[in-house]
């Protein structure tokens, strides 16, 4: 069984762009293949050390498999492309 692609959305409590990004990310995951992707939201202030370690400078930010993939909100097209590419790479 192949491992799931691990996506994390790092959000802030008062961050309008995070709400938009959350909807966009969920839509793309549903569109591609939700069974192959695990999705988690992390409140930046709940895990500040983790965010700092990743190099996050603002919210929202997205990690893929524990690596900072987007430090600012990506377009729908870029997000879709990145996830598809990551899923295509054999582990």
């Amino acid at each position, binding site marked *: 069984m192949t491992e799931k692609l691990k996506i994390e959305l790092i959000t802030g409590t008062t*961050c309008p762009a995070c709400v938009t990004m959350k909807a966009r990310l969920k839509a793309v995951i549903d569109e591609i293949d939700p069974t192959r992707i695990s999705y988690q939201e992390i409140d*930046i202030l709940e895990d*500040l050390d983790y965010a*700092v370690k990743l190099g996050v400078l*603002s919210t929202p930010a997205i990690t893929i498999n524990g690596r900072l993939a987007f430090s600012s909100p990506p377009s729908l097209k870029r997000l879709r492309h990145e996830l598809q590419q990551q899923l295509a790479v054999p582990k």
Partner: protein
Amino acid sequence: MAQIGEISRQLNISVDTLRYYEKIGLLPPVYRKPSGIRVYGRKDISRIKFIKRSQSMGFSLDEIKKLLRFREAPQNAKPEVRQLAGTKLQEIERHLDDLKILQAEFRLLINLCTDDDENCPILDAMDEGSTNQKDN
């Protein structure tokens, strides 16, 4: 070349401390004008800056004295002084790592507050923390 008052202002060290450094041998005898006024050269200033930096790292004056000798002639240093310098280097590196993490943390926190001061998540989180503490 500068007189003691000027060095004191420039480096933010009291005149008494400068005299004390000379008295205990952290600084070699400083050149004096015929009138007796101390005049500090570039090498003296460099040593004073080194002392100040080392003190801010928490090194003792005794350690600084040894390190200054090492600084003067590293090739002639005794093994224990080399070891001391190595230990201090490790301390500095650990300190730098901590500072880098702190720098990144503050940068991130400032970014989180920049756009919307009224709804700053840091202040919100602090408020929540203090409320929880009161509740407990």
